[in-house]
């Protein structure tokens, strides 16, 4: 078995030999190896995160017809590192009335909730942190910790804006968690497993073909979950200055900021895993694990890019519209979709592949079309009601 075919196992075996050679018990050696591996993975992620700062700034600049960072290094590549240094040596200010312990824990939890997500990201066949059979729910569980960190940050800052921002953000996050959970059921139904690795392995047909609507709902819910535009009302610079992290400065703010970017990238990855075949790309993953990793990172980048595109294109939505959109449109739609998917899946169980795909795809399209028609009908009625009122008002 060569290193290029299964790098993880080769490295682990080698290290195990080394450590046991030092007289360490096998269990402890295994744990140490795991620890080292995870440390390396997370360190790489942090480096990637720093890269994301540059990507984000560069991309937003292009969208806004600017150049973006361009002074330090080629294409301004060194810029984020300079930012890091600046964050490092800034004074850490804790506001006077703050609840110190919680105030300090919150940014760490925020970062942690993102990093632990990578435990269930399958990077290549047999290369993933932990193959949990409840992987999908694990994502939500980690998200819960993120939600908690936001409310802790907002509450501990002893600042009105922070608290209001946190409340809004949490309200949005928990609301959009429902359609997200619901759409996560779809890959679970199709793959018959909650494990992320199993979902990727079962995706001979990308699930986006079987559930295009599900993929779309997942993306929308993920954007809201991330608190990015158009759902970034927690920040709302004009009214809340910066939302829940207003009182944070220095590296603690850096944690929130970096956490947000990495979170977006990670959800790009999950979108790829759940709906776009993860590391699979027409057999390319079988050639080499490194290619598989490249494939999934590429797909994650595409997802991330899409999220950025949405963010820098659309305007912020008011909170009432946003919650109404979620509870009155997205949630019923997601549940309808689950029922339709489960039903079609059972009915088309024995059908040939092309019929299965066509059936699933068309059922999604029909549901989407129906939902849009209903929404259109009601919004027209609403508009007529309001306009009618205005006409009456004008008549007086």
């Amino acid at each position, binding site marked *: 078995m060569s290193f290029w075919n299964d790098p993880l196992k080769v490295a682990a075996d080698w290290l195990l030999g080394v450590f046991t050679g030092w007289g360490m018990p096998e269990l402890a050696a*295994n*744990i140490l190896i795991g*620890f080292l591996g*995870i440390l390396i993975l*997370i360190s790489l992620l*942090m480096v990637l995160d720093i890269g994301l700062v540059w990507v984000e700034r560069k991309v937003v600049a292009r969208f806004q017809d600017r150049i973006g960072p361009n002074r330090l290094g080629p294409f301004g590549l060194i810029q984020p590192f300079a930012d890091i240094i600046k*964050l*490092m*040596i*800034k004074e*850490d*200010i*804790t*506001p*006077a*009335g703050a609840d110190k312990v919680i105030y*300090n824990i919150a*940014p*760490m939890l925020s*970062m*942690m909730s993102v*990093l*632990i997500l990578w435990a269930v990201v399958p990077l290549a066949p047999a290369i993933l942190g*932990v193959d949990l059979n409840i992987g*999908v729910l694990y994502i939500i569980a980690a998200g819960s910790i993120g939600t908690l960190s936001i409310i802790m940050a907002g509450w501990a800052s002893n*600042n*009105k*804006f922070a*608290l*209001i921002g946190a*409340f809004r953000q949490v*309200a949005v996050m*928990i609301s959009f*968690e*429902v359609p997200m*959970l619901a759409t996560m*059921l779809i890959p*679970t*139904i199709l793959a*018959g497993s*909650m494990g992320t690795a199993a979902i990727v392995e079962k995706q001979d047909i990308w699930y986006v073909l079987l559930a295009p609507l599900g993929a779309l709902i997942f993306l929308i819910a993920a954007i809201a979950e991330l608190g990015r535009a158009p759902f970034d009302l927690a920040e709302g610079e004009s009214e809340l*200055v910066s939302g829940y992290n*207003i*009182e944070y400065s*220095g*590296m*603690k703010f850096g*944690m929130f900021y970096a956490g947000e970017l990495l979170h977006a990238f990670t959800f790009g990855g999950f979108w790829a895993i759940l709906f776009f075949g993860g590391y699979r790309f027409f057999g390319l993953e079988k050639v080499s694990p490194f290619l598989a990793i490249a494939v999934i990172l590429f797909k994650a980048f595409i997802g991330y890019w899409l999220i950025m595109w949405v963010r820098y294109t659309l305007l912020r939505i008011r909170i*009432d519209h946003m*919650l*109404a959109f979620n*509870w009155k449109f997205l*949630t*019923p739609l997601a*549940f309808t979709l*689950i*029922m339709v998917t*489960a039903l079609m*899946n*059972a009915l088309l169980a024995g059908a040939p592949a092309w019929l299965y795909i066509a059936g699933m795809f068309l059922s999604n399209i029909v549901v989407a079309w129906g939902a849009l028609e209903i929404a259109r009908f009601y919004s027209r009625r609403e508009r007529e009601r309001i306009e009618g009122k205005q006409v009456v008002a004008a008549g007086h």
Partner: protein
Amino acid sequence: MNPWIFVGLFFVVGLLIPVGAIGIAWLLGPKKPNPIKQSVYECGIETVGESWVQFKAQYYIFALVFLVFDVETVFLFPWAVKLGALGLFAVIEGIIFVLILVAGLVYTWRKGMLEWA
């Protein structure tokens, strides 16, 4: 070996990294606090009243609806896992389950509880 050990390690490392980063920043940064610096930041305007503002009850409503839906959707996951093996009957059970759920949503909706205003 229990795979959850690695999950635990992820938690540990996931905490260590930010703790380390913040710790280094704390070591490197200057520490010269003064009351002005530490006052509540409201864009430079003096803060009025306490930070404890009265919240809309609507936040609670959404949290409530979310709680119910969260629990119910979580219930559906074992169902979804086993769905392929169980056939149409299980599908119908799940649909009934979801429909009951939706009935609750419709009630809340009709009561006007999903309105923000």
